[in-house]
Structures are given as C-alpha cells and as structure tokens.
C-alpha cells in the first residue's frame, strides 16, 4: 500500500531530527524545537478523541497535569530513575481518563458543550485535590535534584530527544488510527453517534479507547515536561493555556487529518516566536485568541480541511480505494447471495418473532402490545395513518429506542433491549426515512462502516471498502464513491441508505419510507432494486405510503393504527377490510 510511505517518512524525519543535538546548535534552537514537539504531542493526542470522534475536551490539561505530577512525585519524592516514571505517568493519566470517561460516556445527554465544560471542571477539581494533598500541598515540587538521563550531549538535548521520541510515537499512533477500522468508527461517531451505534459501532467502548490513548500520550508529554521545567506548581500546570492552545492548534491545522494538529502547532509556534520575539506571555494569549476567533469564523475545517476539499477525488480518508471492477454493460453486477438462502417470495420459516412489544413516550402509547411474525424471504409491508406507530416499531426493533415491554426473537435469541450495535451485529439493518449519512465521510466509507461493523463485520478498512464498492455498484452509485453525501441528490442519498443497509449482508432489512420524495421514474427503479434484494434471499420489512409500490411489492401487509395492529394478511384483502378503511378515511366505506 502506497501510504506505507508515511510511517517510513516519519521515522526518517525522526532520525534526522535526532541527529540535531550532536550538531552543537545553540541551546535556543533546542528549546524552541522542544516546545514545538511538546505541543505536537499534546495537540495530536487531543485530536484523537476530540477531533476524530468529535468529543471536544477542554480538559486535556488535567491529563497532562496528571502526567506531570506522577513523574514529579515518583522522581523527586521517591527517587525513581526518571525514564521509569514515564510509562507510569502515561498509565496514570490514562487511568484517570478512563475513570472519568466510564462514568461520563454512560450518560446519554453528555455531548458537545456539556462534555467540554465537564472536562474543564475535572481539570480544576484535579488541580484543587493535588494542591491540597501531600502530592503538592502548595509549595510545588522541585526536580532540580533529579538526574537527567544521558541520552544526548547535554541535559536539554536529552529532554529534546525524549520529547522527539514521544512526538514520533504520537504521530505514528495518530496516523495508524486514522487509517484503521477503529478510526473509521470514530469518524462515524463524530458525524452521527446514534446512527453509528445502529450501524454496529460499539460507541461506548470506542470512545473510551480513544480517550485512553489520548490521555496516555498527554501524560507522557507531561512526565517529560516536568523534568524540563524542573519546578512544578498547580497554577502553572493546570491553567487554561494548555486546553486553549491545544484546541486552537488543532482547529487551525484541521481536526480530521492525522497531521493537522502538528501543522497547526508548527504554524502557531513559529508565529508566536516571530511576533513577540520570545516574550510569550502577554501578547501571546491575545494572538492565540484572535487566531481562534478568525479560525472559527472563516476556517472551521482548518488548513488541512481546505486542502482535503480541494483534492476531492481522493476523498477525505487519505489512501486511494481499491480499483472497482469494470461495469458490465447496463446491468449492474449482483453481489453474491448470502449462503444458504434460496430465492422466493417467502417461506413459512419465521425469521423475526415479535411478542407483545410496547413502547410509550411520556405517557403516550406509541406501540401497544404488538405481536407479529416476519417470515424468511418475504416482503412485509407496514402501513398505517400518521402517528400509528410504524416508525416507532422500526426504531424499537433496530435498537434506536428501548422497548417498555415485550420480546423480539431473532434466530433463537431475544434481542429486545440489547444495545443497538449488538442488534446490528445480529443481522438487522435499517434505513432512515430522512437519510442520515455520515456527512463528512465519502460515500464509499459510509457504506464501508456498515460492512465493517454490522453483521459478520469485516476486520479491516481495505476489506470494508472492497465490500462497499460491490454494493455501490448494485445501487448505481459507484461513480459517486468518492463524493461526499452532500453532493448527492435525494434519490442518490436514499440509495446510499439502501447500500449501507445491505453492505453488512443482513438477515432482515427495515426500510422506512424509502420512496418518499422520489419522482415516479425513481420510484420505478427503486421498486425493481427492492425486488432484486429480496430475490437474493434478504427478508424485507417495508414502511411506505406510496400505495402503488406497496401493492406491487408486498407479500403480506400489516396495518397499524394508534399503536395497535389492526389487520394482517394479503394486500388486497387487508386494504379492503372495513376496519382499515375506517382508520384511513374516517368512515365506514360502502
């Protein structure tokens, strides 16, 4: 793969930079470079959770500070050899991070600004605790007596080399995550966490993992920095400069690119040194603030963001996708059918068995004791007037909502109440009535997420993209594989939803008003595609209002009204039954 260039390039750069201290440069350069590397570690590590997954943290200072104090305490008060304090610093920072995250990520409403404020509060709490206990207690911790490991010709250069190593490690980790299945999952969480969960991404675990990595790296940087400044106080360690600067550097450089924060760091550090000639404190903060303001207003995507959009054909995910197979004339290739499934219009074998399902919202009964069975290989239509519970049914079965009562049996397992990502892995896929693609990921990657996380779940990004390409061809979207969803029209976006639902080769697909808003020609095409999907053996449950399509496609119909199942059976019979007519038209129809 061509992008093996990147890690190789990084290592070479690292080696070159590692030679610098031996060139006997003035100490000023070593300090300057040290600081640049220091901010690179902090900004890049911050970006792993906050940029990739979208959980902006204002508390990076807390984990950095945890690392600082761990190293300081172990080295100065317990006389540990300094290098051994570093892994412990990283571990302690990660442990605190995971501790906080384990609680905070469980709470559903904690997103966006709430998470940011929470992490800010954690910083101050930690600072107060450290400042009032024997760890610091007030006077600070002195590290002058701690021997600096002899890595380079001088103490400064040794510290420089340590921070260089940390920076290389951080950049490699950032790059690796960006190009992995894990990273794709984080990006999905960033764009639409609920949809990601429904597509099979284990959001809770993934966020914790990203947080742990981010904190560990920050802690590492903190440990090294403790020795660099050699006198550590809570005021200096836990003040707002760290979070503010880190946010700024990442936003400026671009939070979606693995090297974005590093680029932002270099730009800002050079700028500050040029501007204020070393006098960091006074004007520095103002300049940072001003740049942040301009950045938020005019460049929300950052420098790297601009570049990424200018080179749209390569997409936002970096490396080129696998070459698509040449299209065979006008009939798109059918992906191979799932093994063991025959063709047909419905067998009598039950795939999904819903028993007594109920769901209420604040006293309003959206679903009341609904029981129905979906047979393998059939197309089941779900109908009903506005507010009858059809969409709620889909939302509950797919795990978007938790039911208040009842069971849902799939393949001998009751999946009711399981987290949505496990339901996706069990083989249930759904489309959204109003398409919810991951807005900042390419069409190809949108489908790849489903292929990697739902159903059997492919283990790597490459495999996911290969599978995704097949499904894009099936839905006639192959030509748009590297576009962003925003560039598609409604019809194409609906088909993207469809491709996503199918990419995991689910046992059951729930289609929620997939035809609404389409022109008659587009509806025709969609109907054919749906037929082909069923012909490959996938079972389909289909909520729709376009009656022609319903009549043409469905094997059986179920009608809902006010959360209750009203009728069930062959399409024509059901629609002509008096109860159904009355529900729709409000009168007994002659």
């Amino acid at each position: 793969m061509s992008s093996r260039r990147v890690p190789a390039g990084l290592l070479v750069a690292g080696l070159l930079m590692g030679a610098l201290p031996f060139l006997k440069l003035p100490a000023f350069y070593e300090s300057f470079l040290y600081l640049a590397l220091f901010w690179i570690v902090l900004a890049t590590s911050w970006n792993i959770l906050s940029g990739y997954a979208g959980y902006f943290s204002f508390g990076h200072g807390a984990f950095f500070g945890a690392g600082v104090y761990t190293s300081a305490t172990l080295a100065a008060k317990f006389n540990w050899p300094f290098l051994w304090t570093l892994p412990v610093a990283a571990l302690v920072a990660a442990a605190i991070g995971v501790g906080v995250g384990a609680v905070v990520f469980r709470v559903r409403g904690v997103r966006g600004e709430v998470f940011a404020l929470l992490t800010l509060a954690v910083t101050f709490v930690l600072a107060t605790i450290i400042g009032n206990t024997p760890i610091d207690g007030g006077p600070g911790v002195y590290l002058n007596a701690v021997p600096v490991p002899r890595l380079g010709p001088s103490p400064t250069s040794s510290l420089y080399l340590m921070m260089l190593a940390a920076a290389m490690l951080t950049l490699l980790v950032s790059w690796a995550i960006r190009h992995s299945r894990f990273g794709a999952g984080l990006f999905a969480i960033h764009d639409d966490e609920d949809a990601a969960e429904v597509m099979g991404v284990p959001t809770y675990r993934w966020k914790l993992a990203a947080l742990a990595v981010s904190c560990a790296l920050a802690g590492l940087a903190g440990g090294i920095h403790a020795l660099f400044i050699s006198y550590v106080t809570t005021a200096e360690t836990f003040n707002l400069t760290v979070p503010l600067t880190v946010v700024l550097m990442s936003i400026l450089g671009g939070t979606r690119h693995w090297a974005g924060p590093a680029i932002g760091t270099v730009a800002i550090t050079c700028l500050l040194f040029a501007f204020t000639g070393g006098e960091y404190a006074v004007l520095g903060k103002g300049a940072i603030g001003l740049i942040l303001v301009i950045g938020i207003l005019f460049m929300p995507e950052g420098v790297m963001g601009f570049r990424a959009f200018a080179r749209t054909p390569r997409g936002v995910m970096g490396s080129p996708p696998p070459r698509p197979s040449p299209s065979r004339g006008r009939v798109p290739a059918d992906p191979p059918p799932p093994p063991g499934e025959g063709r047909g219009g419905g067998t009598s074998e039950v795939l999904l068995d819903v028993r007594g399902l109920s769901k209420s919202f604040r006293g309003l009964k959206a679903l009341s004791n609904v029981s129905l069975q979906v047979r393998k290989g059939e197309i089941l239509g779900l109908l009903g007037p506005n507010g009858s519970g059809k969409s709620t049914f889909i939302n509950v079965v797919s795990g978007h909502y938790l039911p208040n009562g009842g069971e849902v049996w799939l393949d001998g397992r009751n999946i009711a109440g399981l987290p949505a990502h496990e339901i996706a892995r069990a083989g249930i896929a759904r489309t959204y009535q109003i398409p919810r693609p991951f807005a900042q990921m390419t069409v190809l990657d949108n489908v790849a997420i489903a292929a990697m996380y739902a159903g059997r779940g492919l283990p790597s990004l490459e495999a996911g993209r290969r599978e995704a390409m097949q499904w894009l061809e099936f839905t006639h979207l192959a030509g748009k594989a590297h576009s962003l969803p925003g560039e598609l029209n409604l019809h194409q976006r609906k088909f993207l939803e469809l491709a996503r639902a199918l990419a995991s080769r689910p046992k059951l697909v729930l289609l929620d008003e997939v035809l609404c808003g389409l022109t008659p020609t587009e509806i025709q095409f969609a109907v054919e595609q749906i037929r082909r999907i069923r012909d490959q053996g996938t079972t389909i449950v289909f909520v729709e209002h376009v009656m022609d399509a319903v009549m043409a496609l469905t094997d059986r119909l179920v009608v809902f009204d006010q959360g209750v199942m009203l009728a069930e059976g062959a399409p024509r019979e059901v629609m002509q039954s008096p109860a159904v007519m009355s529900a729709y038209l409000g009168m007994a129809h002659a």
Partner: protein
Amino acid sequence: MSFPSWTLLSQSVLSGVFAGALYGLLGLGLGLSWGLLRTINLAHFAFAFLSAYICYQLAAVSHVDPLLTLAGIVPLMFALGAGLHWLTDRFRLTPFSSLLLTFGCMGIVESLMQTLWTADPRKLESHYAEMKFRLGPLYLPIPEVLTLLLAVAITVAVWAVLRFTDLGKALRASAEDAPVAAAFGINQRRNGFLLAGTCSAIAGIAGVCIALSSSISPSQMYAWVGVVFAAVMLGGLGSALGPLLAGIVIGVSEAVTMAVTSPSWAPLVSFTLLILILLLRPGRIR
C-alpha cells in the same frame, strides 16, 4: 481543625451570600444568553473584567465616582454585546462554536487588559470601601451590600420583564419554537440584539461591583468561570431568578467550607457541583 465560633460562621455565611450575589449577577446574563439565544458566551467574563478595569481607571486615576462610571460602561457593554451577537448570528454559530469563539475572545481581552494595566493586581480605593454597616457582631461592607442590592434589583427586574411583558413572552417563545414564534409576527433578529446587549450590560454592572469589592488582575477572570457556570446550570438556563438563588447557595457552601477547612479547598465545591449537575441533568442544557 477546630469548629469556628458562631460569629465567625455567621460572618462566613454572610460573605457567602455577598459572593453568591455576584455569582448570580454574572450568571444572569450568561444563563439568559445560553437559554434564550443558544449562545454560550464566555466573553461575558471578559466584558465584566473589562468594565472593572475601566471603572478602576476612571475612578482611581480620573477620580470619577465609581458608580457614575456605570453611565458610560452600560452603553459601551450593550454595544459590545450586540456586536458579538451580530457575529454569532451572521455566521450561524452553533452553541458549541460560540463557546470556542468566545473562549478566544477571552484570550484577546485578557491580553488587552494585561497590556494596558499589567498583570499586577489593582485595587480600587474608593470611599465606599471604607464604609460598613454593623448588625450586632456582624460587619456588612457597603460595596458588598451594594452588589447584593443591585443583583436582587436587576434579577427581579429581568424576571418581571420575562414574565409579564410581551417582549419577555416573545423571547421565551422564540427560544422554544422559533419558526412558530415567527409565524405570529415575532422578529427574532431584533429581539436577539436587544437581549444580547442587555446581558452584556448586566455583565458590565457586575464588573463595576467586582472593582468595588476586590482587587482585580487579568488572569482572575478564569477563576470565576467554573463557579458561575455551576450557578447557571444549577439555577436553570434561561431562568432569571435561578442563577441568583443558586449562586447564593454555592457562595454560602463555599464560605462555610472555607471557614471549616481551608480556603484552598473552596473551588472543589463549585466544580464538583458543576460535574454532578452536568452528569445528572444534561438534558436541561438544550
């Protein structure tokens, strides 16, 4: 750690009330902005401290009565607040982006203040500072009493406007369901400017109160952030009376903590409360 005397405890509670009143006054504008305009305005603190410095400058250097400086500060802050609102409105910033943007503004203003007035703490020596009431064994310093009175008066006034006037109802309606409110003729842009300006003007008043009662330095701004956010969230976004009451609760618990243990533990109270509120009721913040 000996338990303090009743007098000391009562004095602590009293100073907690005074401190809380200031938290409430600062929190009022912040909470209204957040709840009714969907803007998280960290620049609020910057405006308050800027006002404090302007008051200091006019009073200490030009010998203007500190309370008179309000005549200039209030309109200035109103204009700044409306201007900031114009930015967030024009660029359609989400609450989160407004948080980042105003975070940046804080940095800019801090630099400005530090350049003009240096980082050394400044204390406004006004004749108000020397005056105190005595209530039995308790001391009530005039600046703090003034702050409390202003806080209560402004809070009640805002509450009354929100509750009883058509403008207040319009603001509440727009915050809840903007398109439907517009369908009944409510001009949200205009109302937004009015509200944003008022919130900043209130911050300006709070700033003058700060200048009167304590010494100021640029970096001190940040110390207020946590405790005021805690007051706003405890009191409820978009509420007028909430932040004041919550602020007093927080102020008193801090003061009592300080009296019983040591002053450096005080920040723990507000930040822990903030964390708990964010965890237990994040839904209030929408």
